[in-house]
């Protein structure tokens, strides 16, 4: 991936901890993500992947820790302590969130065009023709025919819904994309198409991304780096192929040898 201009990390995660009562969601997570990097988070179900992702994306408030984000002007801000309006603004401009279930990330009673256009309108676009043209352009980029622009997502297949979700998220040119099991529930050929699309977009737009998945094939294809979680803790990190081909931690070795059904 092409590195961005700045030298600092886009995202610095420092000691992020989230508890559900006495139970650990995720504990003391540290990492830096640089512009253009794609990081995968793997681990079995319940290992804390989604909890961490939601803490990073501002959907959950961590009990401890900092999530430092480099804003467009170069200033570094802790998104945990920034004001809610500012965080929500990031949520619809600089960040994108692709949900596992399209229904969580789409407005099912709004046309495909309206779904893609929403973020544009949210940041002040007020020219119908312009919004629609941009929506059509984005539908094309995610391989949805222009003729479907007025159809609702309920009329789309699962793979198309995911692609629509991606278009809806990327239309404002975000810098950081969060994905929670983006290919979960799709059959293999549909997954492949989606992965290919994501790889292309990540490269063309110079996106940074954090992808949560339990599918090791997905991270091998998409992620530069990997973080392995177990019981809310990070047990291993490194280059994706290194972690998968020469795992150091007992748990990762189990995971890779697919003894574990994750």
């Amino acid at each position: 991936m092409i590195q961005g201009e700045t030298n600092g990390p886009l995202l610095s995660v420092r000691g992020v901890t989230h508890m559900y009562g006495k139970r650990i969601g995720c504990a003391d997570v540290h990492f830096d993500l640089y512009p253009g990097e794609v990081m995968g988070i793997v681990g079995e179900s319940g290992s804390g992947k989604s909890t961490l992702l939601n803490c990073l994306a501002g959907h959950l408030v961590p009990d401890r820790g900092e999530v430092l984000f480099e804003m467009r002007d170069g200033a570094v801000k802790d998104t945990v302590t920034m004001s809610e309006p500012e965080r929500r603004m990031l949520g619809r401009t600089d960040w994108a969130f692709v949900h596992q279930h399209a229904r969580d990330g789409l407005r099912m009673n709004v046309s495909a065009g309206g779904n893609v256009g929403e973020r544009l309108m949210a940041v002040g676009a007020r020219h119908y023709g312009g919004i629609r043209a941009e929506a059509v352009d984005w539908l094309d980029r995610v391989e949805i025919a222009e003729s479907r622009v007025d159809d609702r997502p309920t009329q789309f297949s699962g793979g198309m819904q995911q692609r629509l979700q991606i278009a809806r998220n990327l239309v404002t040119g975000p810098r950081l994309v969060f994905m929670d099991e983006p290919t979960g529930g799709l059959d293999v050929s549909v997954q492949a198409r989606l992965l290919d699309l994501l790889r292309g977009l990540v490269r063309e737009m110079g996106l940074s991304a954090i992808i949560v998945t339990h599918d090791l094939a997905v991270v091998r294809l998409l992620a530069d780096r990997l973080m392995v979680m177990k019981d809310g803790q990070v047990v291993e990190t490194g280059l994706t192929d290194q972690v998968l081909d020469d795992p150091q931690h007992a748990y990762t070795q189990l995971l890779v040898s697919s003894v574990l059904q994750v």
Partner: protein
Amino acid sequence: MMDLRENGPETATEMTDYNFAYLDEQTKRMIRRAILKGLAIPGYQVPFASREMPMPYGWGTGGVQVSAATLTPEDTFKVIDQGADDTTNAVSIRKFFERTAGVATTEETSKASVIQTRHRIPEEPLREDQILVYQVPIPEPLRFLEPSEVETRKMHSLEEYGLMHVKLYEDISRHGAIATAYAYPVKVEGRYVMDPSPIPKFDNPKLEMAAIQLFGAGREQRIYALPPWCRVVSLDFEDYPFEASKADAPCDLCGADDSYLDEVIMDDSGTRMFVCSDTDYCASRRAAGHVGAQGAIEQEGAA
């Protein structure tokens, strides 16, 4: 600006069965506080503890409670239902306040000091000594696209109104134009997006007026308000600007070409005519000698 004198129980002597205007004093004070808050934050939906009224929801219990808290014994009260003073709904609300508050009532817009309305703004410009009370079925303009109350409140507080334009976008993409003809959303004082109640969008420009406007939603327990001459902008797109449209015809009775018209089917053969929806406006124009295309015929027949 607004006359919010307390109406002590002594004013209700002739109505032994009821408190003045039906509601007890404490409730009216609570509603007045909500109204004042609404006026202080134009377009903001103030929650209030809606009371049971002796009429079903949908009959304007929100408007009735606001009227009850607003009326004084000296007031002259008018009720219109889609512009007309003589529908069952309008008549029963008028009767209700005649009985419970003993106030004078009128059908003449200019003589009324408090006007309760369902789905219209009178054609005659209102004055600063008048109050217009709207009955509101659904106060939340974002409800159509966002069912969660928690989320819509947050959207209002953070001024996240992109969704409002999504609704208009959907309109254009489906109908080729903004098809929303009623309850057309507005932005108030550059801050809150507000549902003006299901008035025709023809009435939207009139929302900037001299009179105080109060909006009451009974079932949803919300009150909101527009102080006089508050800035009210109808949402639109640059290439699909807002238009305050109406049927492209003059009133067949009074000839008015500037009033909102109802289309009325006259007989079994489908003869139709356009008449002012504001019955008082039409009547006073005809009294002043204005005659529309079919108004003359009617007079002949009457003669």
